[in-house]
């Protein structure tokens, strides 16, 4: 149990400190790296409470894909220019009130959740929950997700698809004058089409069509 506690506190301290560093560090790329560290330690915490499937999916989706795209975008930004804009002693930022509202909302949500824990402890009782503890985590997740909640699952998938198509449509623009190569055309070229043998008369030359 002591080993468990040591690991829990290590991972949670890393998670909290790196979450603070995401907002505190001045270099945006460093922020993304701290974000990645945060994701990894949180997935370690997931694995520690026995939710190994969620932990691994967290690693694959957030760290393996989402954070890579984050890093991509952030690296493309001109970091030097940003430094001048954001950190040159500008104390009157427009983002602060919105941030305050959102963080108060999240704070109250957490209060509600913890309050529920306090007054109705049976909600959080593992034995009362739907999950069957005799099968593995992945199995029980699949059994619930693809039977009881299949429609919600499908709808969320459709929403994601619509969002993806919407993003593509919004950024799509037809460019003119783009040279495209057709593989089939290139491969199926015969010698007869490409090479022409001509009699070249002296002092007249050959007209090459272009």
């Amino acid at each position: 149990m002591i080993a468990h506690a040591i690991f829990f506190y290590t991972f949670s301290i890393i998670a909290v400190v790196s979450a603070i560093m995401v907002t505190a560090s001045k270099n945006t790329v460093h922020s993304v790296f701290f974000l990645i560290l945060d994701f990894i330690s949180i997935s370690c915490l997931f694995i520690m409470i026995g939710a190994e499937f969620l932990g691994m999916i967290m690693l694959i989706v957030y760290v393996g894909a989402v954070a890579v795209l984050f890093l991509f975008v952030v690296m493309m930004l001109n970091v030097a220019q940003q430094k001048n804009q954001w950190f040159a002693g500008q104390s009157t930022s427009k983002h602060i009130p919105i941030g305050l509202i959102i963080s108060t909302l999240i704070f109250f949500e957490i209060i509600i959740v913890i309050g529920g824990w306090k007054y109705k402890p049976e909600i959080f009782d593992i034995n009362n929950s739907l999950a069957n503890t005799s099968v593995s985590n992945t199995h029980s997740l699949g059994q619930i997700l693809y039977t009881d909640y299949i429609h919600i699952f499908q709808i969320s998938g459709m929403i994601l698809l619509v969002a993806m198509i919407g993003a593509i449509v919004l950024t799509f623009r037809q460019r003119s004058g783009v040279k495209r190569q057709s593989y089939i055309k290139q491969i199926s070229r015969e010698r007869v089409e490409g090479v022409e043998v001509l009699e070249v008369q002296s002092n007249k030359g050959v007209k090459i069509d272009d």
Partner: protein
Amino acid sequence: MEYLNIVFQEVYKILFLLIPVLVSVAMIVWLDRRVWAFVQKRQGPNVVGPFGLLQSLADALKYIFKEIIIPSSSNKVIFILAPIVTMTLALIAWAVIPFSATQVLADINVGILYLFAVSSLGVYGIIMGGWASNSKYPFLGAIRSAAQMVSYEVSIGVIIINVLLCVGSLNLNDIVIAQQNMWFVIPLFPMFVIFFISALAETNRPPFDLPEAEAELVAGYQTEYSGMMYAMFWLGEYANILLMCAMGAILFLGGWMSPIDVYPFTLVPGALWLILKILLLFILFALVKAIVPRYRYDQLMRLGWKVFLPLSLIWVVLTASYLFYFNLLPVN
């Protein structure tokens, strides 16, 4: 005291796994160069030791004694961290590889997801190295590599779903045991081919070695690295290649199972079968390097997104419908 005992036992096991992996990485570099040379009718490294077997050791010695140069305008912490990340990620994945029904360091329930997660994290070593070098060629190499690895991961993930449909478990030992009657390479042969090509792209091997295309980008993300740090990138890369071969062997070639379930073959320990299968796949990797010219970048992206992804998705639907229609789904 009891804790310490357990810890020491685990450390002992880890060393017993890691040292052979590191030695085999050194050997595999030699094999790679040898195969490459034979295809081109050269001799390859044949001077140091018998058949040149100790060439990699000599190279390692050379790298150790070289000076590590850290560019003055680089981001030093991340610059030093990048090869360490690459190397660590390449080695921690071996924890879940089963060498027989019992010989596995961590027999976890979500083994294949762990392998997939670790191999998808491998891109960070490259991005960190490329960005921290603060130089154009490494940065371009890193950007290319990130886009390439993310694209091909998608199709590898879908191929893994294909195999999992036939197995009904995420545990690597269960995946091996499910191939007792027939290796998955037979019913899922197209997926095996796509997996092999995606693995080439995922590990930045030729013909998809655009991140380090020497004709365009000097050496890509490794341009600014020297000495042992360069060697660590190199070791990590080859350890990743071996890992991909092991993944292919487990998913499609029956892992530690003997090819035929007859008396003299079943006596051979499972670890040896797995190593033989990994070697077979690796020799294929090396042959591809020697035979195929490098892809252009847009062709690479087209292959990943427009050919492999739809094909493997269609194959998922096919496999699922086949299993469902003939009532073969592995339900427990």
